[in-house]
């Protein structure tokens, strides 16, 4: 089997196992209060990390490039309660425009 297919199959099986571990093993039992206090904060922490990495990381380097303008424009649009799709389009359009202008 080729490397590509091994990556596809192992990553797929591993991901489904990671996703299903909670729902299948925990069943319908509620989480203890202390645990619930923690897991409600997992989303904000990881999403903010994805925003930061997606905006500033270029491989293992941190850079400031046209993406900062795009994501900044997206933040302004969110502040004015723009719908998600518009926010995403604004980010792409501002970034693409900045790149085109920078040559």
């Amino acid at each position, binding site marked *: 089997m080729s490397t590509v297919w091994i*990556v596809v199959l192992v990553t797929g099986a591993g991901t489904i196992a990671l996703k299903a571990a909670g729902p299948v093993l925990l069943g319908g039992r*509620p989480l203890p209060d202390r645990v619930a206090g923690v*897991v409600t904060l997992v*989303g904000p922490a990881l999403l903010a990390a994805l925003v930061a990495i997606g905006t500033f990381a270029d491989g293992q380097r941190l850079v400031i490039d*046209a993406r900062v303008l795009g994501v900044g424009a997206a933040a302004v649009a969110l502040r004015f309660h723009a719908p*998600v799709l518009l926010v995403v*389009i604004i*980010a792409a359009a501002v970034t693409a425009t900045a790149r085109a202008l920078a040559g």
Partner: protein
Amino acid sequence: MAEGSGNRSYRDGVSAAVPLSVAVFGFGVSYGVLALSVGMGTLAPIAMSATTFAGSAQFAAASVLGAGGSGATAILAALMLNARYLPLGVTVAPWLEGGFWSRLLHAHLMVDESWAIASEGRGRWNPRVMLAAGVGLGVAWIAGTAVGVLFGDALGDPARLGLDAAFPALFLALLAPQLRSEEREITVARIRIAAPPPVLAALLGAAIALVLTPFTPAGVPIVAAGAACLIGLRRRP
């Protein structure tokens, strides 16, 4: 558990997922283009979108393979990125009904976006909304991937279109509603901080990710940022 999981239905999940699905279709196209360009062929990227069904992990795996990394490194990077689904799965677990296969299906259709759409605040999730949103997002993701690998050569450079900035913008849009909280301050290690807990967790998570980026392989900073949720262990007033 229906009485605790809100009144929203499958239809609400679909309508919430439609605008995101358009964006996800676009990301699917850009993933297909990238996967094709690093020599993954046409069928394997589509199979990966159907099974792994997680954009950031698939982008990471394709990037590692494209940079000449080994299959093992690509798998590790992808699975570390997807490690976040372990706690996400735990958050939705109490709200799921049915047997093994139903739970497995809900788990598979849980992606960042469907999970966020299904969130009803204060640690409650709506499984019907998550299932419907997951199906819509999955169809868009797989169809986008197929378009990307089939017509990729004609589309040009995703960076020129600004698609790389659309990704963090999407996560920012998903983050914003999660920052609301009834608590206005938080006490960590006996220090009172005048910020709602989700805001502090977000700032800490972003800081951890940025500090680790130069020193760790791709994917690790995002997993490590999850540690910011531990501020939730504080004693409640």
